[in-house]
């Protein structure tokens, strides 16, 4: 029975009030094909308000003069001025390069450590459940706490890490990890990886539970070793989960400056300056929201391109 016919089947209004009764009209509307759009309307409005509007506003900001401490010229359309400045801005290019290093190495370490941890926990060893909770602890720590904790542990005067490394003979003297441009970024990546590898562990563990054990039994019978099983069964079966985890972590790493803000503030001498931190400084130290908006748009476009390329290359869509 079509909806049109269903509408036609409704009894005619019995009075004038019945003809304008909102409940009756609503009832009639619910029998039409427009009803589904009406049901989607609240969600559409909500998404527009909390996702679309800020995104469009961010784009608009990047074409606008908006310096909060220079109210006189604010709001004026400046076209591509901020993007032109960006092309000639050496700090932007340095930040872009540092962002690539920061994201690439953080993701690599987090993925490898997260995978190893998930595989170990998936073996149902004695105490595995307690270990699983302990492994997740770093991820539950706020960035501010994790950052300050590691800054203290790596301190060149009172840091316990230096103490251990000197006592076991790996270091001759205490090292100022964040004051040396050769070690500042690597140390920050280490802290970031420590903090976020449980994210991979968590998702990969969930994925491992979904892989049929028959596959491993068959592989055993065929003589496949542990590494071959990992390469030919586990990783391909986890492809979708790994793709999702990598994309989510890359977005998090590109967008969030808080750990670097605590550990180095981009120093020493901009050696850990990344795009998100640069945008943050432009917005909240220089109050240049126009330029900060343009930097954010570039980050947004880069992330979209990355996600698109990664999904295509990892062939997730073929699953």
């Amino acid at each position, binding site marked *: 029975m079509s909806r049109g016919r269903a509408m036609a089947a409704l009894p005619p209004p019995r009075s004038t009030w019945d003809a304008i009764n909102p409940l009756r009209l609503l009832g009639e509307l619910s029998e039409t094909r427009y009803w589904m759009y009406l049901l989607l309307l609240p969600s559409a409005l909500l998404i527009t308000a909390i996702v679309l509007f800020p995104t469009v506003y961010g784009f608009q900001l990047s074409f606008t003069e908006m310096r*909060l*401490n*220079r*109210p006189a010229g604010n709001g004026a359309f400046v076209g591509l001025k901020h993007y032109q400045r960006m092309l000639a801005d050496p700090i932007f290019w340095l930040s872009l390069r540092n962002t690539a290093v920061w994201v690439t190495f953080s993701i690599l370490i987090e993925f490898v450590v997260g995978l190893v941890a998930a595989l170990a926990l998936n073996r149902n060893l004695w105490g595995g459940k307690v270990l699983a909770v302990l492994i997740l602890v770093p991820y539950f720590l706020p960035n501010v706490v994790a950052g300050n904790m590691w800054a203290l542990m790596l*301190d*060149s*005067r*009172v840091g316990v890490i230096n103490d251990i490394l000197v006592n076991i003979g790996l270091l001759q003297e*205490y090292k*100022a990890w*964040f*004051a*040396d*441009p050769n070690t*500042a970024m690597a140390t920050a990546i280490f802290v970031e990886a420590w903090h976020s590898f449980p994210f991979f562990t968590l998702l990969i563990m969930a994925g491992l539970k979904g892989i049929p054990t028959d596959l491993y039994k068959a592989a055993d019978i065929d003589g496949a070793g542990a590494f071959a099983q990992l390469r030919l069964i586990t990783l391909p079966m986890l492809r979708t989960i790994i793709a999702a985890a990598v994309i989510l972590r890359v977005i998090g790493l590109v967008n969030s400056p808080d750990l670097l*803000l*605590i550990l*180095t*503030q*981009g*120093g*020493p*001498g*901009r*050696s850990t300056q990344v795009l998100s931190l640069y945008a*943050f*400084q432009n*917005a*909240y*130290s*220089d*109050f240049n929201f126009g330029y900060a908006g343009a930097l954010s748009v570039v980050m947004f476009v880069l992330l979209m391109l990355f996600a698109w390329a990664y999904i295509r290359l990892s062939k997730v869509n073929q699953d």
Partner: protein
Amino acid sequence: MTAKFDRRSVLKLGGGMLAASALLPHQAFAQQTAINYWHTFTSQSEAAGLQAVLDLFKAAHPDVAVTPENIPNPEFMAKITAAVVGGSRPNVTMVSSERFEDLLAMGALSDMTDRIAGWERRGDFDDKRFASITKDGKTYGVPGFTFVDWGYYRKDWFDEAGLAAPTTYDEFRDAAIKLTDASKGRFGFGLRGGPGGQNFVVNVIEAFGSPVKKEDGTIGLDRDIVVKALDWYAGLLVKDKAVPPSAANDGFQQVISGFQTGQTAMIWHHTGSYQDIASKLKPGVEFGTFAMPAGPATRVARLAYAYNCITNDENADAAWEWIKFWGEPDAAVAFLEKTGYMPASTVAAQDQRIVGNPMYKAAADTLGFGIPQPSFPGAAGWAQNTVLPALQQILIGQATPDQAADQIIEGLAAAIA
């Protein structure tokens, strides 16, 4: 047993409660006006100081409830900007001198000129105390306390080496070199090259003879002088090796703990860290204080003020009560005794508890010749995002003083454009 209530007994009970409530003291129903106070206090001593003032205020003004909210200094501008733009301003905000111009420009501050003019304790404050919070004849805050720049030195080490507290940059550098013994992990000076260190770089540049801006508002930085100043300051690490190698990342905590733990012989800071240092080292025996030494051209020591400002017109009268309470001598001295921050009120600064303490002599002297920080829209951002990275690049060997000076001057031009 189940209690049974009929309608009549419920009405009786309600009526009885209403009658009883009318007999309670009126004060129990007095409405407290609630205000929140954003501040950037971080150390234990600062928290204790704030609590001391809050306790005194609560006793004096039971009708006003102050809720303090700590905003960490690095996040302060981000939070207050978001609060102003988002319409969720605090009632009262602690505003340091260097942030005044930016906050005023974004419309965060309320005009307090009339309230201050009619305040019975206005005469306790020198006019200069309000200079850094006044623009176009309007005043936007009341100084709560004073940041007086000074230095701390290890008196026991100086005595052992036969040295006196430095009064000039040359004496300072000599002492730093003489007291450095890398084999013992001891360095002459704890240079703050990390977060918060930017203002000392600006001070050194001015002490070498180059103001940041001229009176007509144009760039005052002289490239040759800036190069000399940077060469001298960064040279304490790069050439003299009289500074810990961690300097490029050393912020407040690192510099203070370096001094407290015997790594460094001298540090520059302000009086607000006095109690923290005195909690680890014996005043007058293990450490002493000195006024900032004179540079080749002039002596630069900053007098900056933490102003309390009305940032929300709602409950402004209660906010004003809280703000002006900081000018009461008892509150100012209680805060000083917990922290070391000097009062902004001239009357409070003459209190015997302050002038009778020889450790505060350097601060009292500095009140005579200290000057405010350069203040213009964009000043704080320029210092933090251009001056500090430029210094760090020299410290880590990525730039020469010439290159750093160019960055600093170009950055200033962009900031004031």
